């Protein structure tokens, strides 16, 4: 899409989605005249409570959950932290965490490991999907939790969550699914999942504001709080409720999970497929289900260099690996998929959104057609 800065083609929706005007419009009254505290008994407070309840009900219904199982948080990372640490308040035990988790889960698990927890890492196959046979062997009855990303923010590969939930239920182990990325492009339905499941969401990946997230699912009931205060959100997320944020999350989910979402996803997938076909670059995870607008491509050149060259030509995309302090470390997800370091460093991530157009795809192809020969010359001459 073209942003307010009309010269930028924004194809980094996985990093954050541009604010959807419908979401902004929905939340605005709650930032102005409908400002009451839902805990107060006066009219403004009652109004705020009603708005919050309505938003919670809509959020729950859009993902197939019970409204009582929705805990609103201050963003996706906080949601993941609550879902993981909320099961680790007792004596250290054991947890299974997939090899491709977002830092919001991975780093939290690392902290638990330092506190004496045993963290078992569930491997992925080279196609990016969790190795279910390994998972079956890895999960033990008595484990505190299994964590699996619903869809990778790096590759866009969607995990077979129903199968994973069945394995967890079989062992009576709760499952947490980081669906922060998934919600933007795949249907979420918790109603059919067996066992105790939680998911994490973040509004800003869906066209909503930053700082708004949620933990949702039947597993919420058995979480312990990790912050303490006034008892809001069933005591799991105390603090005066962010009604505007809840309304925004509901509005954003309505767009991404509502009745019009499937058609939009197909359209996005078609544009992505067209892009991949025209660029002709190796695609990570091509053989399995991916989020519809998500393309992780191996360019053969340094990803961050390609990203800068696109940026200079008015197209915002992302690199698969970040350069930090003079060291470009390959992304952990790609390493877990057995992609070699140089190939991993060459990855670029192009992520489309609902507003992406065919003209945007044409622009990307044109830029790559211009850049590829020069990059080839530069790389050849470096040897």
């Amino acid at each position, binding site marked *: 899409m073209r942003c307010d800065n009309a010269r930028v083609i924004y194809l980094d929706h996985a990093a954050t989605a541009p604010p959807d005007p419908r979401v902004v419009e929905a939340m605005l009254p709650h930032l102005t005249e409908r400002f009451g505290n839902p805990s107060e008994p006066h009219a403004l407070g009652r109004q705020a409570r009603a708005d919050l309840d309505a938003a919670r009900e809509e959020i729950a219904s859009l993902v197939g959950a019970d409204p009582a199982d929705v805990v609103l948080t201050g963003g996706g990372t906080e949601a993941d932290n609550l879902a993981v640490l909320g099961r680790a308040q007792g004596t250290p035990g054991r947890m299974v965490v997939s090899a491709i988790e977002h830092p919001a889960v991975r780093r939290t698990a690392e902290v638990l490991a330092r506190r004496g927890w045993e963290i078992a890492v569930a491997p992925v196959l080279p196609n990016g999907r969790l190795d279910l046979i390994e998972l079956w062997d890895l999960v033990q009855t008595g484990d505190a939790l299994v964590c699996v990303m619903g869809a990778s923010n790096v590759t866009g590969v969607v995990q077979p969550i129903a199968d994973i939930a069945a394995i967890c239920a079989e062992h009576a182990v709760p499952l947490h699914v980081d669906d922060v990325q998934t919600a933007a492009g795949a249907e979420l339905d918790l109603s059919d999942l067996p066992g105790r499941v939680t998911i994490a969401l973040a509004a800003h990946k869906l066209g909503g504001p930053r700082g708004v997230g949620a933990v949702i699912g039947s597993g919420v009931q058995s979480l312990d709080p990790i912050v303490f205060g006034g008892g809001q959100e069933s005591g799991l997320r105390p603090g005066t409720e962010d009604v505007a944020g809840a309304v925004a999350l509901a509005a954003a989910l309505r767009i991404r999970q509502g009745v019009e979402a499937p058609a939009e996803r197909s359209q996005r997938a078609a544009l992505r497929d067209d892009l991949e076909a025209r660029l002709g670059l190796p695609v990570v995870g091509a053989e399995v289900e991916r989020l519809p607008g998500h393309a992780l491509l191996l360019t053969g*050149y*340094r990803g961050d260099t390609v990203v*800068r060259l696109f940026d200079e030509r008015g197209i915002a995309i992302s690199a698969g690996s970040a350069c930090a302090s*003079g060291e470009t470390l390959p992304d952990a997800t790609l390493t877990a998929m057995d992609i070699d370091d140089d190939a991993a460093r060459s990855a670029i991530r192009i992520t489309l959104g609902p507003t992406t157009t065919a003209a945007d795809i044409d622009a990307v192809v044109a830029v790559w057609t211009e*850049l590829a020969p*020069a990059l080839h010359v*530069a790389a050849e001459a*470096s040897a």
Partner: protein
Amino acid sequence: MIDLSRAGAVAQPDGEGRAGGGRCNDRVRFTLGLVGDRLEQVRFGADACASTTAAAAWLAARAEGGSLLDGARLGLAEVLAGATIEPTGAECALTAVDAFHAAIGDAVARGAVVPADPNRVVVAMSGGVDSAMVLTQTVAEGHEAVGVTLRLWIDPEAPSPERACCAPSAVRAARDLCHQNGMPHIALDLRDDFRAAVVDPFVAGYAAGETPNPCTTCNGAFRFDAIDRVVQRLGASTWRTGHYVQLVDHAGTPLVARGVDATKDQSYMLALVDPEILTRVQFPLGARKKVDVQHEAAEQGLAAANALESQEVCFLGGGALAPFLERQGVTMTPGPIVDEDGVELGTHAGALAYTPGQRRGLGVSRGTEALHVLRIDAPANTVIVGTVGRLRRREVSLRDVQVRADTPRIDACFRMRSTPVAGRLEHGPNATGTVYLETDAHQIAPGQVAALYDGERIVAAGIVAG
């Protein structure tokens, strides 16, 4: 914008430089095509991160069409500003700067010639405080100063290779100082030459049971020859170093003389420098005291003011001699430690790592006498020890004798800043000679340089043969 239009390589380059590696395996290569001293074509190759690639592309665009010395003026600060690289990308950009300067240095090494300028002075820079001060002084005098630094070979397995005087960090420090002063800097990569001219003879000397002094070979011949070779190419007629020595005239020939600061005098190290080269060299610090120089450097805020001074054999990089020699293929075999009568007093781990005069680390005794290494019998792998009295000598034979001025009597030094011993030199055939000392000298080992002074000036020099 990263301008990729100069990506590629000059077919038959007049200069070529590379940099990269490390954990991100970035690679940059520059090739230069010269017409006279004009950088007619500057091409780069980069398989590297955005900051490195941006820096390389900017350098190519900026340097092309300018002179070689203008290119040699381009430093990291200018690259970061010109290529709009965030400070976090500075380390990456440095890879491109290193590769570019390697190409510039290579062009000079291959014979590129810069038109002469009578105001231009070459300053030999080690990256340390002394040569830094010479540079700033030269600039303050209104000269165009061209810094030249040699990149020399360092044992890659050394524990702290950055301690060496000609390590990459020292080259960068010298380059940065030149660029801060708006002056060009040339780094000559002489790692292979240095290995052949200094390191290999050092290893061979030890293997033959000698105690070679690589610093005099390096300072006295290798470095002076290398820099003097490029001075004229860089369009200068004189050059300067930060050595604490002076020059005195002897019948039209310059002789090396002691620096005013006796505690820092480096004349011994320069005993072997060719007098013809000395006609073009100036030593601005020879009349100064090191403490004053350091004080002034600190006042000027020179980063090199507090830099670690390299004291030991630089290419060992802080490592021990014996394992270095072993890595270079010298076999260390345990053998006997005997006294002069052949009585075995103990065993050593390898005779070649011992130095005549050495007392510590022998682990042998004979009664209450303190024993020193007297000499090494390399073929027999034997260390011969004796009392300190047996180390004293009155007669020292020399080879490769060079005489600058004939004087009836001399004061001989066999080590840096050792107390001179009075005597006379008697010439033998084929540049040999014998020094007859008036009083005892000790700790004299074959392979060391003998600097023979007449008062403050060095009138002859040679290598101790036995």
